[in-house]
């Protein structure tokens, strides 16, 4: 299983801050497609994906136990 994290506007869009999904073996790109199906609009949020707290590339593959986070454009400072 993969743990998914949603923040800020994406947390409000999805209505959850965290969930589990059976996405091991999928790429980050496939994770994005899965999310866009489940949460229409998320694909327009310019979000990056982090795996285990590090920014990931579209071709990176999720492994069982990974934490994947949708990172909308940051606005700290």
């Amino acid at each position: 299983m993969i743990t998914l994290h949603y923040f800020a506007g994406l947390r409000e869009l999805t209505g959850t801050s965290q969930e589990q999904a059976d996405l091991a073996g999928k790429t980050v790109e496939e994770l994005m497609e899965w999310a866009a199906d489940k949460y229409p609009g998320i694909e327009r949020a310019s979000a990056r994906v982090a795996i285990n707290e590090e920014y990931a590339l579209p071709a990176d593959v999720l492994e069982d136990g990974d934490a994947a986070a949708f990172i909308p454009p940051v606005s700290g400072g």
Partner: protein
Amino acid sequence: MKAFEVVTEPINPQIYADFVLRPEAGAVTLFTGHVREWTKGVRTLYLAYEAYVPMAEKKLAQIGREIEEKWPGAQAAIAHRIGELQISDIAVVIAVSSPHRKAAYEANEYAIERIKEIVPIWKKEIWEDGEEWIGDQKKKPEGGNQ
């Protein structure tokens, strides 16, 4: 305290300046970013910050390492507060020490730029007539806050 941290309580900036001070430091720069009442003619009531805390602290530490590589001899400490912040509250503090002042200024400004690029922290502005998560500030004319 930790040298790179996300906190929920009010920030005392001096402890970060003290942290980076060393006998070889001739200069310390301390930047504090504050909640500003007016932004582009709109009055902010308060802000709410949210973070992906463990990743944010890793990214703040990464910025610290980048500074040590780019400005040898410089040392940084950074904290960002999350939760509800009122006008004039400190949202972020950046302390940099260095043997010479030029590096202390440059590295400090570099840190705030990098925070706005890579650290997973988000700001929601709450106005009298609404609220909005702020994002992608760099694409807006005039830049974001501060």
